[in-house]
C-alpha cells in the first residue's frame, strides 16, 4: 500500500528518494490509475513534477526537451511545430496537460506515441543516476528501460528539415484512442531520390519497431507509389502485430500497408 509520495525539488534529491522499490511518476497517467483502482505493491512514489527538468531548448537545430515537459507544452512550441500531428492525435487535451515526453518512453504499445517518433528522430536520452549522467540512444531505453535508481532527465533530437518528417496514427475513433498502427518516418531526399530513411512502426510490437526492411526498400528510389508499396509490404515483415481491445493482430497486419502508404504519400 502506498505510504509516501515524494516531490523532490531537484534531480539530485529525486535520485536520493529513489530507494529500493520506489516508483517514478512523471505525469501520473500510468501510476495514478494503479494507485486509484488496485492494491499496489510499491510503498513509495517519487514524483518528478517539480524536479526542474521541464522546458524546451533549440540550439543549432537540435532540440533538447526536458523529461517532464508535457505533451501540450510541446504542441504549443512553434519551434516544434512539426510534431503537431503527433500531439493532436495523442489522447485528449486534459491528458496532454499531464503526460510527459519522458514518461511516454516507458508506455507499452499501442500507447507510447512519442516513443515511436523519437526513435524515428534518432533521439538521444539523457539519464541521471547515482553514478553520474550518461547519454544513450532512445532505442536502448525503449527496449531495456533504464537501471533501477536512474532518472531520464531529457531527450534531444535534430529538428528535421521541412518535408522530411512523416507521421500517421490510425485509430478506432477520431480522437482520444490508442493506435491501431502508427508510422513515423524521417526521410531525406536529394535529387528526387531517398538518401536516408528511418521508419518506425507503432502498434506493431510491444515496443516501437524500427522497420529496417521498409527503410531498405525506400533508399535509393524516388518516393512514389511503386517504392512505397514495396516498402509497405516489407514493413509487414518487420512487424509482430498483436491482439488487444482496439484491434486484432490480423487487422493490424491487414491495414498496416495502407496506413504506411498514407503516412508517406498522403491520401
Amino acid at each position, binding site marked *: *500500500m*502506498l505510504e509516501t509520495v515524494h516531490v523532490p525539488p531537484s534531480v539530485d534529491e529525486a535520485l536520493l528518494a529513489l530507494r529500493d522499490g520506489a516508483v517514478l511518476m512523471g505525469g501520473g497517467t500510468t501510476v495514478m490509475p494503479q494507485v486509484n*483502482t*488496485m*492494491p499496489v505493491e510499491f510503498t513509495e512514489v517519487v514524483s518528478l513534477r517539480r524536479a526542474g527538468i521541464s522546458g524546451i531548448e533549440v540550439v543549432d537545430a537540435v532540440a533538447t526537451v526536458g523529461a517532464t515537459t508535457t505533451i501540450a507544452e510541446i504542441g504549443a512550441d512553434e519551434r516544434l511545430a512539426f510534431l503537431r500531428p503527433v500531439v493532436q492525435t495523442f489522447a485528449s487535451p486534459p491528458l496532454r496537460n499531464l503526460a510527459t515526453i519522458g514518461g511516454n518512453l516507458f508506455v507499452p504499445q499501442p500507447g507510447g506515441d512519442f516513443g515511436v517518433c523519437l526513435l524515428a528522430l534518432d533521439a538521444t536520452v539523457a539519464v541521471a543516476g547515482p553514478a553520474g549522467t550518461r547519454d544513450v540512444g532512445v532505442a536502448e531505453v525503449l527496449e531495456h528501460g533504464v537501471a533501477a535508481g536512474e532518472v531520464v532527465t531529457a531527450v534531444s533530437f535534430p529538428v528535421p528539415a521541412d518535408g522530411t518528417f512523416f507521421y500517421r496514427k490510425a485509430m478506432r475513433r477520431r480522437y482520444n484512442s490508442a493506435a491501431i498502427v502508427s508510422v513515423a518516418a524521417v526521410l531525406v531526399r536529394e535529387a528526387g531520390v531517398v538518401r536516408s530513411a528511418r521508419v518506425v512502426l507503432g502498434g506493431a510490437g510491444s515496443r516501437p519497431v524500427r522497420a529496417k526492411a521498409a527503410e531498405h526498400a525506400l533508399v535509393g528510389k524516388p518516393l512514389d507509389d511503386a517504392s512505397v508499396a514495396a516498402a509497405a509490404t516489407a514493413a509487414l515483415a518487420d512487424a509482430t502485430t498483436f491482439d488487444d481491445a482496439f484491434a486484432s493482430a490480423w487487422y493490424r497486419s491487414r491495414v498496416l500497408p495502407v496506413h504506411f502508404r498514407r503516412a508517406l504519400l498522403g491520401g
Partner: protein
Amino acid sequence: MTELIDHDYFAGDGDDLHVVGTSVTRADALGHVTGRTQFFEDLLLADCLHLKMHRSERHHALLKRVDVSGALEVPGVVRVLTHEDVPENWYTVLRLIGVEPNDQPVLPEDRVLWRGEPIVAVVAETEASALEGAARVEVEYEDLPAVLTMEEALTEDAPIIKPHGANCFIYEGHPCRRIRFGNVEHAFAQADHVFEWRYESEPIEHAPVETTGCIVVPQPNGRLKIHSNTQAAFFTLDNTALIIGGPFNRLQLVGGTVGGGFGGKVDVIVEPIACLAALATNRPVEYVYSRLEEMQVSSTRSAEIFVVKDGVMADGRIVARKVTCYMEAGAYTGHTTYGVTKCAAHMPGPYSIPNVWVDAYCVYTNRTPTGPMRGFGVTNADFALETQMDRIARALEMDPLELRLKNAYRDGDLKAHRKVAEGAALVEVIQRAAELTGHELAEEYERMSSLTHAGVGV
C-alpha cells in the same frame, strides 16, 4: 413554422394541450450545469467504510476452500462477509412478480458460475485497504467444464451448468416460451416463397459514465437509509428487504438520480450486501463499482440469435412466420426470463400474419449475467424482423415501405399472442414518413388506413 401538433390525426385533442408543442426547461438542468446535482457518491460522510469484492477468477468451478484470514490481517479491514452472513441468500430479482426458481445467490455457497462472480465482501476504513483485503482472500477452485456461447450450451452433450438440469429456463414444462397461432407448416406449403435468414448480436455493455453503487447509512431509529443510483427503486427496496430479513419499512431508499442507466442499473446488486455490512458494523458503508467492474461484471444486453422463416405470397402478403430465438441469460436468470417473454410477445412484429410459431429460449452460459438495455427483449428482435422485411422486399422487387403497409396490423386484428390490436398507427406513420422524405407510394398504399383492411387481401 411547422405545426407541432397534427390536428388532422388528433382532431379535437389539441384544445387542452398546453405543454405539448412548447419547450420546457428540464427540471434538473440547473443542478447539472452548476455541479450541484446530488449523485449518490456526492454524499460525504466522515466515517464511511468501503466495501470491495473478491471475485471469481474462473468461469465455472466448485469452491473447495475460501480463506479470508489474509484479508483480516490488512490494517484497516474491519469486517469480511461471506454467504454465511446473508440471511436469505437469493437474488432472484423477479421473484416479487412470482418468477421462480430461486436461482442466484447473493454470495455463492459451493460454486461459481461466471468469471467475476462476487465471493467475499471486504469492508475497510479506506478504499485502498478494502482493495488490499479483497486481493488477499484466497480461493481454491476445482474447475468444472464451462459453456461460453449459446451454441455450446445447447449442444446435445453440453455440460449442464444449472441445478434444475437444463441450460435453458423452463417455461411451464417447456424449454422455451412458445407462441402457436394457426398452422405455419400448412401455410409454408401454400406459400409462393419461403425465406429463412439468421441474425446474431453480441453482448453490449451500457457503460454509463457513473458506475453502479450505493452508500448505506444506519439511522438512529434502527432503519437503514440507502443512497443508490438504482433505476429500480422499488425492486431494490423490496428485494433488499427479502434478502436481509425484517420488515420492508426498515429500509428507506433515496434515489432517482442516475448517472446513466440504460437498463444497466436495475439488478439490485450492490445494495443488499452493503446493507448487511452496515448492519454488521453500525457504520455507513459505500459499495461502488470500479470502471473495470462496470465493464466486465455489471449486466450487459444479452447476446441474441434469431432465425426467422417466412412464407410469402407473390403479392407480398406474409402468410406464415416462424421465429426461433435465443437470448443469453449468462450464468443466472436475472431479468432475462421476462425479456424472453417480452420478445415472444413482440412477435411477429407490427404485422398481421395469420400463422405464427415462436420458440424463444432463455439460455444459460458461464458468462456475465445479462440484463435489460434500451428496449429489453425487443430491440434486437426488431433488427432481425425489419432486416427480414427489407430482404423480402428486395427478393420480391417490391418497395420496402409498401411491403410493410400491406402487412401492417390494423385495429381489431388478433395478434399472435391473442391480444386484439387497438390504436394501431403503423400505416399512418409510414405514410407520413414517406411524405416527409419524398418517398412516393403507389396510390393504393396512400389510401390505406389503420382503421380498415382496404387494399389488404385477407
